[in-house]
């Protein structure tokens, strides 16, 4: 309970027979500077050691009188733990929000100990991790074995693309062989011109006898080499382009599939536009890189190595002279590389930000127009567009200087060769003009290749930035993990049990230990002010998120031990603003069960009171709805989503403000539809209009993350608690509204 290095020191402070209950380590001092402290709760006192650094560590203590209690307050990253009694605050300690839960634990420990009237303090109960079966501490419900996530791989993102290349190894090998062959074929012509000059043309010009028939042979060889290079190049380009298109398609598919499986928590913290840019743009860039640049890059390397070998074999000295500027170029590449990578990453981020503006304002165009903010949105887009331009411009500044500099250096290389060659032609051991021509032809090729390879530096960095952005998604593991040893839920009976459920959004705890049991087939109405944690509770039951502590049991098993998909097949959800996908009405109703027959779809629509309005549409059940389709009213969409939930025949039904966005007449229709839906299912409904919940077996009032009251409507009214107040307020609203004649 007390950290090991403090145990001895703490033990010295205890009086004989005093029992230690719990401890907490605040990590800030009163001026909010970092300083470790220690608070110890015993069965007699609260002891605290002043933070180090203030003075010599000294201990203070306060006896546990009947009115002493501990309170926690959290605000903006730092929390306060206060020791108060009837007369006021005795002492306080500060801590960073990361320790908030621990501080609350300490406060609760005191309460819990008092409740047991000084009885024995339980040893921390052991529980079993629902995912892997390892023993865990029941207090925080976290499993050390499961939480040690995989270490982030440090390999370059581009190298990791190899994983996607492996399934296409055969095609890649074919492409490589073709590349090798076509490169060789491309190198033949200068080799043939060498004897053509030395053995035929130059002797002939000098008036010596020359075998002219040889010239035809050489010419023929040149033609054949050209055709061979053409055919091989054709095959190479096609094969490699196909492979790269395939790889980037795989990458896109994998990224999207991974994205779909990530929990809502991930999407809550990401901009839609940026994600779209990553799946769309970045994979496209990678494809371009793989299909165009990487092929060229490979060819270039081959070409350079082969040319270097030929050059060295023709004349080693000349070759070495030609390679003079090469180290300089390598050094430049090295300098420029990092800057380019940073630049491209920035450019990618800027592009993502721009897409985000689009993804934000185009769906929200009604609000933009209603508030006449078009010009501001245009400006906002221009700002992010300008940022795209600026980031590209920064790259271009580096790039525009770099390219010509490389050209200058390669030209320098050529000049060195010319100068050296002139000297070699005139000094022994002489070289022939034929050798010189061939040499110059090769060296020209060599430097063209070097140049193009260096231009590739930019493409490589750009692709590498894209690959990093994609792997960022692929490396994210879902915060709703699949169990290691799953229990298959099959068809649940729908008994839900919450045991000490806590949940944190970041550092803020929004549910503070909820206990509730819902019997199969029971309908529970959740009421309470907005922000009380009702929707959070539902998100936890659906396993959109996992609890921070405590557990949710369904049919006696922890929900974390079910495979997520199988579990969710048992749950039907009707949301406040139902989403319809682009497709026909029949497809939308059958979204949760695409194999449903037409008769089943119609039966569901009938039960949801949607059948007749669907028949009134021009194409009936074949009418297209969703973003580009027929527009439906809120009530109509709601009834389609009820039909959707009905069709999967769920055991657990969640209604999240299902009727709050429609008028009362439509609400009546929806109510009738809902009655068909909730029959025989465990239902948890959130509603602001209390009238919606008249069929609920029990009402649960949630207030600031805790259950305030549970009971039937009239019981709760009689109790004159929070529910009675809520009810009163709504009644006043209704009567007040009619008095105003609205």
């Amino acid at each position, binding site marked *: 309970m007390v950290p090991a290095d403090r145990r001895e020191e703490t033990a010295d402070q205890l009086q004989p027979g005093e029992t230690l209950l719990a401890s907490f380590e605040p990590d800030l001092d009163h001026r909010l500077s970092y300083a470790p402290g220690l608070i110890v709760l015993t069965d007699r006192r609260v002891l605290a050691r002043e933070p180090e650094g203030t003075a010599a560590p000294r201990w203070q203590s306060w006896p546990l009188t009947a009115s002493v209690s501990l309170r926690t307050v959290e605000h903006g990253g730092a929390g306060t733990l206060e020791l108060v009694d009837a007369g006021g605050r005795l002492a306080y300690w500060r801590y960073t929000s990361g320790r908030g839960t621990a501080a609350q634990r300490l406060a609760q420990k005191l309460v819990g100990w008092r409740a047991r009237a000084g009885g024995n303090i339980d040893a921390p109960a052991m529980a079993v991790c629902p995912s892997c079966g390892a023993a865990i501490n029941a207090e925080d419900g976290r499993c050390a074995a499961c939480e040690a996530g995989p270490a982030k791989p440090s390999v370059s993102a581009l190298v990791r693309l190899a994983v996607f290349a492996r399934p296409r190894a055969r095609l890649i090998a074919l492409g490589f062989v073709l590349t090798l062959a076509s490169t060789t074929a491309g190198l033949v012509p200068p080799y043939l011109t060498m004897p053509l000059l030395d053995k035929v043309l130059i002797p002939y010009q000098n008036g010596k006898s020359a075998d002219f028939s040889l010239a035809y042979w050489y010419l023929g060889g040149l033609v054949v080499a050209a055709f061979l290079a053409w055919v091989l190049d054709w095959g190479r380009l096609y094969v490699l382009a196909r492979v790269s298109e395939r790889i980037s398609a795989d990458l896109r598919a994998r990224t999207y599939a991974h994205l779909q499986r990530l929990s809502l928590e991930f999407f809550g913290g990401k901009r839609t536009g940026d994600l779209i840019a990553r799946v769309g743009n970045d994979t496209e860039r990678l494809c371009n890189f793989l299909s165009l640049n990487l092929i060229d890059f490979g060819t270039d390397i081959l070409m350079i190595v082969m040319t270097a070998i030929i050059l060295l074999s023709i004349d080693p000295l000349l070759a070495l002279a030609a390679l003079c500027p090469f180290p300089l170029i390598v050094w430049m590449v090295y300098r420029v590389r990092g800057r380019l990578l940073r630049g491209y990453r920035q450019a990618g981020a800027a592009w993502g930000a721009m897409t985000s503006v689009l993804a934000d304002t185009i769906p929200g165009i009604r609000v933009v127009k209603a508030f006449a903010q078009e010009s501001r949105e245009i400006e906002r887009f221009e700002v992010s567009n300008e940022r795209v331009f600026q980031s590209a411009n920064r790259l271009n500044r580096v790039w525009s200087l770099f390219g010509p500099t490389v050209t200058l250096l390669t030209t320098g290389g050529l000049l060195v060769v010319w100068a050296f060659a002139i000297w070699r032609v005139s000094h022994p051991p002489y070289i022939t003009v034929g050798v010189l021509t061939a040499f110059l032809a090769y060296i020209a090729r060599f430097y063209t290749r070097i140049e193009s390879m260096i231009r590739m530096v930019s493409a490589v960095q750009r692709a590498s930035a894209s690959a990093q952005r994609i792997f960022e998604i692929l490396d994210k593991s879902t915060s709703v993990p699949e169990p290691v040893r799953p229990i298959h839920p099959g068809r649940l009976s729908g008994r839900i049990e919450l045991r000490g459920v806590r949940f944190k959004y970041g550092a803020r705890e929004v549910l503070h230990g909820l206990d509730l049991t819902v019997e199969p087939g029971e309908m529970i109405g959740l009421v309470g002010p907005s922000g009380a944690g009702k929707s959070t509770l539902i998100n936890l039951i659906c396993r959109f998120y996992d609890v921070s502590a405590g557990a949710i049991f369904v049919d006696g098993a922890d929900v974390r031990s079910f495979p997520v998909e199988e579990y969710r097949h048992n749950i039907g959800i009707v949301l406040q603003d139902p989403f319809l996908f682009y497709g026909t009405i029949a497809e939308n109703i059958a979204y949760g069960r695409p194999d449903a027959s037409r008769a089943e779809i119609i039966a569901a629509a009938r039960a949801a009171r949607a059948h*007749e309005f669907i028949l009134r549409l021009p194409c009936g059940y074949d009418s297209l709805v969703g973003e580009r389709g027929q527009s439906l009213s809120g009530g109509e969409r709601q009834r389609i989503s009820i039909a959707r939930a009905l069709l999967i025949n769920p055991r657990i039904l969640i209604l999240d403000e299902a009727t709050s966005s429609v008028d009362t007449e439509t609400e009546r229709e929806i109510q009738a539809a809902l009655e068909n839906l909730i029959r025989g299912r465990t239902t948890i409904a959130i509603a602001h209009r209390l009238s919606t919940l008249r069929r609920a077996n029990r009402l649960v009032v949630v207030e600031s993350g805790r259950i305030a009251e549970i009971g039937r409507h009239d019981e709760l009214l009689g109790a004159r608690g929070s529910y009675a107040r809520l009810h009163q307020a709504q009644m006043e609203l209704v009567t007040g509204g009619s008095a105003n004649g609205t």
Partner: protein
Amino acid sequence: MEHNGTTNGAAGPRPFGLTHDAWGRLVLTGADGRQHAGVELVRAFPLSDPRHGIALCDGHGHEILWIDDLDELPAPLVRQIEEELARREFVPVIRRVVNVSAPVEPSEWEVETDRGRTRFLLNNEDDVHELSEHRALITDAHGIRYLIPDIRHLDAVSRRLLERYL
């Protein structure tokens, strides 16, 4: 629910009758002898499954009778229903796309349909919907729908004109 009409054998060979009254309205005589005037026939799946799921609704759109399968009805009644449906539904089937006036919308289309040659205005490229593979539905500026049952059966020129939209 309102599912009170059935065409199963149990309901007899002629569960209901259709006639026209003096004003040309369609009158349904149910199996119980009750009459409903001004009845309309509605297909639930006009595009994907036209011969199953046909509703007979009153003037307010409330369903009176439901036919699961048209082919289970006696032949004369089927003929009558088909005639009624043909009178009610106007979805020309495109046989050939002759010309599309412009590469960008709005564009005027000239087509040959099963009901003759016609022109219509396409407002938006999104109004050309691919229903399933090779099947398309075009909605013109007035909301009139044109069906292409199978694109592969069109000639090469029509296919090339449609290519961009599908």
